[in-house]
């Protein structure tokens, strides 16, 4: 029998939903399970309603699933809001001494959470940890694993000890009281070590692995986490992380650092990215390598600050006035986020241009178990460097070459004046007015796209090599669509998936061919206009036959996609 069980922790902001959810996920990961977890929270610090879903499987999992098997309701609202999402026979674990008037669907398992926390840990605020213990007790999980995770999370001191007591109380309560009512068991299955991390942790790790030494940014959900992770590691890894006065400063700071020869990045979300687009063009004309992470969220403007969307694709492709080459990558999975971030730095330096990494709130804050990153696969390619001692020739920062790439020197080296300009300039970097030089310089820059395009990995087909219907997605929706393809395949539908995570330069040929092979096609996008569909048509002339679009700020689930694919009849 295979395991696939969904936990949901619900409560208000400030009740510790996030840490309960995370510890739950971590405990299962430690027991050899595959885990995928996502977070849903409001743009407020206390109150409101948040939830954290943890899906536990004994095989690879890359998406959340719909019916909830066990709901840990830290308040009444969580019951009211999520009762309807329960699987048949689904369980609601709640504090019957605090929450009254319970009715409706679900097997209600009441645990005196606050009282136990108060009694055993001397702090009723630890009721959430008690709930955590209760949940694990219910499925008979190994308490030792939880004990360890709690110790790591809360520290070895008193707080840690008390949390363990609180958890233990809940654990024992459910073991004793509900043994007979609930006999589903989840035991650790192996001691395989897998990492549990979220998408923005993966980006930050990728950046550090790529040798990024300078990060400047301005806080903005969901990308603040990248800056915070890197700041935490700054001392140990010789990074500089600077919280700037605004996003304009951030991008111009990394341009200064990139020009000076250091791998540099910034991370923001749509609003902040808007403020960076003039700098983006500056990186374009000065041929300065920089990496920008745009963690997308629903727009326009402030939109829904803590939710997810994929609506900055066309903006990222065309942002900034004038024309210059750029690369746009959109990690499909948490693993991808690590590798594509490294690739972003390599492309930026090799082709001396800005690279945009499009993530989104869903990818940023979802956790998944990852086998590990084989660091021997990490390559650092800084592109062609010029060293004045060896070259012995006059240095020209923007020398015209066949590939369009000019050898880079860094300021500070004797024998090389490194000059560049936001104005159109000559090879030496001085501003010009004449038509010929202008034309040459535009061509020099644009022709970098030829080689750059060869670096783009072709999008991969998932599912059968040939199918009647091809689904097309990009970025963070990958896991959900793949699972939908699996489900549809089991139902004997002829469906496959072409998923793009390297979007610009656009792999037009592969996409066109894949489209030709299918009878119907359908994009699946977390936006309202079908931006990938528009791009596909612009680049291949082909119109997809269907669009499954979602723009309510919530991520896709496999089941949602399956339903929509059936409905669309594609």
């Amino acid at each position, binding site marked *: 029998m295979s395991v696939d069980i969904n936990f949901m922790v619900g409560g208000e902001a400030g009740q510790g939903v996030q840490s309960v959810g995370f510890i739950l996920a971590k405990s299962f990961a430690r027991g050899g399970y595959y885990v995928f977890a996502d977070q849903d929270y409001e743009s407020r610090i206390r109150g409101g309603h948040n939830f954290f879903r943890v899906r536990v499987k004994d095989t690879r999992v890359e998406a959340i699933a719909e019916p909830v098997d066990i709901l840990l309701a830290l308040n009444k609202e969580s019951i009211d809001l999520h009762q309807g999402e329960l699987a048949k026979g689904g369980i609601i674990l709640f504090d019957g001494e605090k929450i009254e008037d319970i009715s409706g669907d679900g097997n209600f398992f009441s645990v005196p959470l606050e009282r136990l926390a108060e009694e055993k840990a001397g702090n009723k605020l630890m009721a959430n940890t008690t709930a955590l213990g209760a949940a694990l007790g219910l499925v008979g999980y190994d308490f030792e694993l939880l004990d360890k995770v709690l110790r790591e999370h809360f520290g070895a001191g008193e707080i840690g000890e008390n949390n363990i007591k609180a958890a233990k109380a809940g654990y024992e309560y459910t073991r004793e009281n509900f043994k007979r009512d609930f006999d589903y068991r989840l035991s650790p299955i192996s001691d395989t*070590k*897998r*990492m*549990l*991390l979220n998408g923005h942790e993966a980006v930050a*790790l990728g950046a*550090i*692995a790529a*040798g990024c*030494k*300078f990060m*400047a940014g301005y806080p903005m959900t969901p990308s603040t986490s990248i800056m915070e992770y890197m700041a935490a*590691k*700054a*001392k140990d*890894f*010789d*990074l*500089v992380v600077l919280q*700037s*006065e*605004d996003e*304009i*400063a*951030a*991008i*111009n*700071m990394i*341009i*200064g*650092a*990139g*020009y*000076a*020869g250091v*791998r*540099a990045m910034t991370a923001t979300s749509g609003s902040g990215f808007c403020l960076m687009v*003039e*700098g983006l063009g*500056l990186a374009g004309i*000065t041929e300065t390598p920089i990496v920008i992470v745009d963690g997308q969220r629903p727009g326009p403007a402030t939109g829904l600050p803590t939710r997810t969307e994929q609506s900055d694709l066309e903006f990222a492709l065309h942002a900034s006035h004038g024309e210059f080459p750029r690369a746009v990558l959109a990690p499909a999975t948490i693993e991808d986020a690590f590798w594509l971030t490294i690739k972003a730095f390599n492309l930026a330096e090799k082709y001396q241009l800005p690279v945009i990494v499009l993530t989104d709130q869903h990818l940023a804050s979802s956790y998944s178990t990852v086998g590990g*990153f084989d*660091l021997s696969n*990490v390559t650092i390619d800084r592109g062609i460097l010029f060293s004045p001692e060896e070259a012995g020739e006059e240095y020209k920062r923007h020398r015209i070459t066949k590939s369009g790439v000019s050898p880079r020197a*860094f*300021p*500070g*080296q*004797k*024998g*090389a*004046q*490194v*000059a*560049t*300009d*936001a*104005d159109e300039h000559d090879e030496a970097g*001085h*501003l010009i007015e004449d038509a010929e030089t202008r034309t040459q310089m535009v061509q020099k820059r644009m022709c970098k796209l030829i080689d750059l395009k060869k670096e783009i990995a072709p999008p991969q087909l998932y599912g059968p090599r040939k199918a009647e219907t091809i689904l097309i997605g990009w970025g963070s929706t990958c896991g959900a669509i793949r699972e939908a393809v699996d489900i549809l395949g089991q139902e004997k539908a002829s469906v496959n998936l072409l998923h793009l995570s390297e979007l610009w330069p656009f792999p037009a040929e592969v996409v066109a061919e894949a489209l030709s092979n299918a009878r119907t096609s359908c994009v699946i996008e977390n936006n309202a206009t079908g931006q990938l569909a528009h791009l596909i048509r612009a680049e291949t002339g082909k119109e997809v036959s269907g669009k499954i679009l979602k723009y309510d700020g919530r991520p896709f689930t496999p089941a949602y996609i399956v339903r929509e694919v059936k409905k669309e009849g594609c």
Partner: protein
Amino acid sequence: MVAMTDYAGSKLAWCPGCGNFGILSAVNKALVELNIEPHRVLMVSGIGQAGKLPHYTRCNILNMLHGRTLPAAAGAKIANPELIVIAVGGDGDGYGEGGNHFIHAMRRNHDITYLVHNNQVYGLTKGQASPTSDLGFVTKTTLRGATMPLNPLALAIACDASFVGRGFAGDVEHLANLIKMGITHKGFAFIDVLQPCVIFNRKNTYNWYRERVYKLEEETNYDPSNKAAAFNKAQEWGEQIPIGIIYRKQRPTFEEQLPALDKGPLVKQKIEIGRIEELLDEFL
């Protein structure tokens, strides 16, 4: 020994008589007198007439967007603190478009020198009012006269800039000296330079400035370390305009507080992939 010829740059595009020539001379003079080789210097400039200055020298040049000199200068300095970083821009560039960077760069105290060619007008775009245009200054966008100007020195003192000076493009000797002190100052050295624009500013001319400027060094009891006195001094404008060091205070630079730089410039540090293993393990 470094000589003036080491700094000779490309053909100049300023108007004859422009105050920028004096500033250029003073910059070069300061660098030569400090015996700094051009390759050790990075000039970061904005867009405007002032922003063209670096092209007329021979050091490293990063000519930025309008208003964005300071963040880039800070980024470059952090990447390579061995560079002598000089930021250059106009009054529109620095106090208008770049105002926010200005106040925050001073607050953080990056170890750079910042020269503002303050001609009290937008030169390159042909004569609109700037944030420092005198009250009532008439331009094509301010036909009824400009509004209250910004006082950049007072602003700098309010931001506790660690070095606040004012020079005059018509006194190259004095200005070169000020720039030398700015460059050797550890921390953010801000120098506002009164710069006649002979085309678009017919009010604040060489003569107008000359009749008014006086040197603070010659005022025996002026103490630039006294913030209150400096703030009061910064209010002087009109009949008497002080030049020289208005305010100076030693405080830690942004860069010297960065542990990552203890091992040398970031640009010279190796990328050690192996060590990342430690980080990955934390997620197990």
